[in-house]
C-alpha cells in the first residue's frame, strides 16, 4: 500500500482493483475452488454455528427433528427459519406464518437484484433460478466485497463455490445442534446464537460506498423503533425508509462534493 502514498488523489482500494481484475483466476474451476476456499474460513464457521444454534433451538422447544432439518435444507435462510420456529412454537396460524416468513425474506429480492447484474452476460440465463437458492446473507456479503476484484466471467463460478459449501454445511450443522442440545452448557449455546449477528455487524465495517454506510447507520437507528411498532413488517419498512433517505442524501448532497464518495 506504500505506493499509494505517492498518488494522493486515488483511493487505494481502486488501485488494487485495477491491478488484479484482469486475471485473478485462470479458469472457471479455479474460481469455483477459490469460492470453496473462501467459504471454508469465517463464513462457514459463522453459518455452521448459526445452524447448530438453530438445531438446538428446535430440540429445546420440542419441535420435530425432520421439520427442523428440512427447513435448513429447503429454506436456507436463518432469520426466516427463526421466525418460522418462533411462530410454530407459539401456535400462530399457517397463513400468518407464511406471510411473516415471506416478509422476512423480501431482502432476497434486493440482494439478488444487487448481486446478479454483476455477473457476465452469458451467465445471466435461466440456470440462475437454481443457483439463487445458494444465496444467503453470508454469501451475499462476501460476494459484494469480492466481485469488485474478480473478472465478470468468473464471478458466477466463485459465487457457486462459496454458496454451495455454505448450503451443504447447513444441514449437518442443524442435525448436530439438534442432538447436542442439552449436552453442552447453556453458555456455549449462547455463544453459538450470538456469532451470527456479530458476523454481520463486523462485515459492516468493510462497506466502502458512503451511500451504503448511511443506509446501515440509519437502519441501525430506525430498525429497533419499527421492530417495536410491528415486528413482522419492520425489515421491509425500515429498509425502504432508511435506504431511500440514504440514497437521496448521497444523490443530493454527497455526490456534489468531490472526494466524499467511497
Amino acid at each position, binding site marked *: *500500500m506504500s505506493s499509494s502514498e505517492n498518488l494522493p488523489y486515488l483511493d487505494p482500494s481502486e488501485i488494487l482493483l485495477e491491478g488484479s481484475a484482469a486475471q485473478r483466476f485462470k479458469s472457471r474451476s479455479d474460481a469455483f475452488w477459490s469460492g470453496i476456499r473462501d467459504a471454508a474460513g*469465517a463464513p462457514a464457521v*459463522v453459518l455452521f454455528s448459526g445452524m447448530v444454534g438453530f438445531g438446538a*433451538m428446535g430440540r429445546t422447544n420440542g*419441535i*420435530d427433528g425432520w*421439520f427442523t432439518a428440512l*427447513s435448513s435444507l*429447503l*429454506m436456507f435462510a436463518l432469520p*426466516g*427459519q427463526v421466525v418460522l420456529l418462533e411462530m*410454530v*412454537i*407459539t*401456535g*400462530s396460524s*399457517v*397463513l400468518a*406464518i407464511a406471510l411473516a*416468513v*415471506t416478509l422476512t425474506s*423480501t*431482502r*432476497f*429480492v*434486493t440482494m*439478488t437484484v*444487487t448481486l446478479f*447484474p454483476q455477473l457476465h452476460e452469458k451467465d445471466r440465463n435461466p440456470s*440462475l433460478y437454481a443457483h439463487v*437458492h445458494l444465496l444467503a446473507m453470508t454469501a451475499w456479503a462476501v460476494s459484494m466485497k469480492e466481485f469488485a476484484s474478480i473478472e465478470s466471467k468468473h464471478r458466477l463460478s466463485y459465487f457457486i463455490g462459496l454458496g454451495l459449501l455454505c448450503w451443504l454445511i447447513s444441514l449437518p450443522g442443524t442435525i448436530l445442534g439438534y442432538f447436542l442440545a442439552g449436552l453442552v452448557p*447453556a453458555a456455549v449455546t*449462547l455463544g453459538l*446464537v*450470538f456469532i*451470527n449477528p*456479530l458476523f*454481520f*455487524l*463486523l*462485515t459492516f465495517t468493510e*462497506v466502502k*460506498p458512503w451511500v*451504503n454506510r448511511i*443506509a*446501515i447507520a440509519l*437502519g*441501525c437507528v*430506525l*430498525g429497533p423503533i*419499527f421492530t*417495536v411498532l410491528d415486528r413482522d413488517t419492520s*425489515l421491509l419498512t425500515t*429498509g425502504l425508509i*432508511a*435506504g431511500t433517505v440514504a*440514497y437521496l442524501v*448521497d*444523490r443530493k448532497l454527497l455526490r456534489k462534493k468531490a472526494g466524499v464518495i467511497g
Partner: protein
Amino acid sequence: MMNASLQGWGLWVALAGACLGTYVCRAVGVLLSGRINQDSEIFRWLAAVTYAMVATLTVRLILLPVGLLATVPMWIRILICVLSVGVMMSSPKRRLVPALLTGTLLLVSYGALS
C-alpha cells in the same frame, strides 16, 4: 412457554408455505435482476435499501432477541459488540476472525460466570 405449538399436518403446511415464500423472493430477484444495469440509479437505490434491511435484521438480533440471548442484559450485549468492532478496526486490514473470537468468547465467559 404455553403448550400451544402447531401440531400435525398444519406444521408441514407451514413449512411448505415458508419454503415457497422464501424461494419466490429469490426467484423474483432473478427475474428483476435481468432488467437492471449495475451502473443505474435504481441499482444504487436498491443496494442502499438492502444494506438498511440487513442492518435492521442485525441490530434486531442483538438488541431485541427472542430466546436465550434475551437473558443477557442489553448493556453487556452492546459492550461486547463495541469491543469486537474495536478489535476488527484496530488494523486497516481488518481482523475478522480475532474480532469474532473476542465477541463469542466474552459472551460465553459471561454465560459461564453468571
